[in-house]
């Protein structure tokens, strides 16, 4: 009685569950048969349309037809809806293929067991096996499906948009169809003069902003934390509380207020400067000064976070290190450079990278404070302080250039993910879990 495994495998490949029935596992077999039956019914009516949909993205747009002087809506293909529906069907199809493969493997394995003289499991034994040995997998099955359809599916959909011409004014469904255009959107963004000029300009500022805002808040926070921790500083709790306040106020409120504070003509800041006989600065209206302003305001918002973090680290530095340094006759500065700084950097490097990645997409700081302004006549729909992410917002919500926005989103993701990974792998705390020497 050899060759059970091949027979069972082939039978299961022909129709799910046949191999299991051949292996005398009737209940499991029937369940597989039921799954395949449902799948066949579902795919017969949907799969062909899904393939048609994902390749053509619809063929006839909606239009109005006049019947006896009354216009009637004749619904046609809505490319974007078709894209999503096809995507869902195809995902189901992939899931089905996985189940189909598992069923073949299952039949084959049980067949192999039988060849070795072990009888097939009964249904209760199978259940127990799943609950005991495969508990994690079976327990994660439902959340996994949820993630697939509510997280992964939308991401795939959004990535797909970058390869279509889904943009105002000529390709907005339902009256118009959307088509695949391959890499044309990326080419326009990176090469075509009218877009690339804006893209590189905004990208450059995004990088500058990310570096400056991260560095200023981190070292600012470190400075404040060290100051408060000095011996001889009294009311430590009060200083801490005062410095944490900016972080506690919702940015929505504080940044919108800042907008008025920094108004070049009527803002209190320039009024005070005028009071001392100084000319005010064009805080928000000059491209250069607007950039300075957002960095400064971001320091005000971001320093408390770094301060808290670094204060926590400071408490973990062993006292005896400082004592040893003092015995060796180290100055205060040397103590900071040789003991404190490396310890802080070692513990906070991963957080620093997180902050950097977060700052690349710091939507709030820019959108609420300047809205990307001052306007820049050389840019397409972007202002001088727009980051890629706020520009993306404008392109999508104000201009309906969805494919462009999607392409920018993909590029942003590649930048952030690539940078974070590369740096994270190089940090000491990732490479060696033990203490630095």
């Amino acid at each position: 009685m050899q060759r059970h495994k091949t027979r069972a495998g082939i039978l299961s490949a022909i129709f799910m569950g046949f191999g299991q029935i051949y292996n005398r596992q009737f209940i499991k077999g029937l369940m597989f048969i039921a799954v395949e039956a449902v799948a066949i019914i579902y795919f017969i009516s949907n799969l062909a349309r899904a393939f048609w949909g994902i390749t053509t993205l619809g063929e006839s747009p909606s239009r109005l037809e006049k019947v006896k002087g009354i216009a009637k809506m004749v619904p046609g293909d809505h490319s974007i809806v078709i894209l999503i529906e096809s995507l869902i069907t195809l995902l189901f199809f992939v899931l089905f293929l996985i189940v189909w493969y598992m069923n073949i493997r299952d039949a084959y394995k049980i067949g192999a067991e039988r060849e070795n003289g072990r009888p097939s499991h009964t249904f209760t034994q199978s259940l127990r096996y799943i609950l005991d040995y495969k508990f994690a997998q079976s327990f994660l099955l439902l959340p996994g499906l949820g993630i697939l359809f509510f997280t992964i599916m939308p991401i795939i959909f959004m990535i797909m948009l970058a390869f279509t011409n889904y943009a105002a004014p000529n390709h907005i469904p339902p009256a118009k169809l959307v088509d695949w255009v391959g890499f044309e959107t990326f080419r326009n963004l990176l090469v075509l003069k009218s877009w690339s000029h804006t893209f590189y300009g905004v990208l450059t500022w995004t990088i500058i902003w990310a570096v400056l805002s991260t560095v200023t808040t981190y070292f600012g926070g470190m400075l404040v934390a060290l100051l408060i921790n000095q011996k001889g500083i009294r009311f430590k709790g009060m200083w801490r509380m005062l410095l944490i306040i900016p972080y506690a106020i919702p940015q929505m409120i504080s940044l919108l207020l800042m907008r008025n504070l920094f108004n070049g003509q009527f803002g209190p800041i320039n009024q005070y400067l005028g009071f001392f006989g100084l000319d005010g600065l064009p805080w928000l209206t000059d491209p250069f000064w607007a950039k300075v302003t957002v960095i400064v305001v971001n320091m005000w918002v971001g320093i408390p976070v770094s301060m808290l973090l670094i204060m926590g680290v400071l408490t973990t530095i062993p006292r005896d290190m400082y004592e040893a340094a003092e015995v060796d006759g180290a100055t205060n500065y040397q103590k900071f450079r040789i003991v404190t700084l490396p310890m802080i950097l070692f513990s906070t490097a991963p957080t620093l990278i997180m902050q950097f990645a977060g700052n690349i997409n710091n939507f709030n700081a820019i959108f609420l404070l300047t809205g990307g302004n001052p306007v820049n006549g050389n840019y397409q729909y972007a202002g001088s302080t727009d980051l890629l992410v706020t520009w993306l917002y404008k392109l999508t919500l104000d201009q309906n250039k969805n494919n462009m926005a999607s392409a920018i989103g993909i590029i942003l993701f590649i930048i952030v993910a690539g940078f974070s990974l590369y740096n994270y792998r190089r940090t000491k705390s990732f490479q060696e879990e033990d203490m630095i020497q």
Partner: protein
Amino acid sequence: MDLKKLMVITAACSMAISISACGSNNNTGGNAAATNAPAESATATDNAGAGSDNAPAAGEIVPEEGASLVIWESKEERQFAEEISKQFTAKYNVPVKIEEVAPPDQVGKLTQDGPSGLAADVIVIPHDNLGKAASASLLLPNDIFAEQTKAENTEASIVGSSYDGELYGYPRAAETYALFYNKSLVKEAPKSFDDVIAFSKTFTDKAKNRYGIMWEVGNMYFNYPFIATTGGYLFGKDGTDKDDIGLNNEGAIKGLTEFAKLKEVLPIKSGDINPDIKRSLFNSGDVAMDITGPWELAGYKEALGDKLGIAPVPTIDGKTAITFSGIKIFTVNAYTQYPNAAKLYAHFASGKDSQLTLNKLIGSVPTNNEALKDPQITGDPFVSAFAEQAKNSQPMPSIPEMGNVWSPVNAALPAIWDNNADPKAAMDKAVEQIKDLNNGASAQ
């Protein structure tokens, strides 16, 4: 697949019903209500010559059985929508639900939600968004009430409600801007911008933040007079030719040169002027004149009382200033389940009485000819001043390319105002950008 069939069947059925409804008398509550349909509408169609032979006459249309409507209305004007919906429900027995969506956002929301059947049946939009929605076939044309709408409303509002030769909208209010002034500071309203400069020289004091005049100098909407009055234009002569852009022609540059002259009396960066600051300065008497729209009226009246005056925008280069006007229009969602009820609502809510109600509650300028002659309007110095200015206004173009204009021009104006850029060079750049965008910047 099945859904499609169902749609076709419903479409066919509703067609059949609407045709049969003309002749037969099915016993629906709606029909009973329709029998006491307003006599005025019947006479109005007679006056209009009951033009189209094949469309059913307006008086005979009845809401679908079991119809209920959802409408979108702005937060500020919700009061009006509630009032009108109450009257509509009483008259036609159709329940109406109101959802708050700001008019400029409605087309965007309709684009997203319309095809999936989640949008409102009747929406209110500024007419410059009409092209975007109509070219995407999101709206049903105003066909049944077309003759009546055209006969009853002003020319400009009909132009604003039409796209590509087809009437879509049911106009409800005209909106333009005029010169608000503080009578205690300005003896009489200036006739020309030269007068404005002359007065402001005596009043403006940058150190004390006092200015003779202030308006949003970086926003094309308010600065259109400096383009159009002296012969500039946006898209051809009637706002429909996307390839004929006259923003940088000789006339426009002439007007913008006048615009740049005003910097002398308003020495502020364009980015520092925002509506909130302007409002507070005007209310406190530190700004003597403000060019803005009727949405500020209620607040200014409260702050200044009888010191408030409104005059037409001053002349530019000796010519009467031409402002931009926006028409607020009702339109019907093409995906509505109850097209008849929706059309009835849009028509009802844009009629003479409804426009007068809107004026009473909000202070809007009607587009209905009879409403404009009503003592309620002519007796109100503020509203009639806006109505006067509206006569010298051009409706914003409503072609979809209108969306490509704002951003480049709103970048060119600050360049002229803040950085003393040459108007010609700045506008050339803006026009080039608009053309790029119109041509999809890449055949997009």
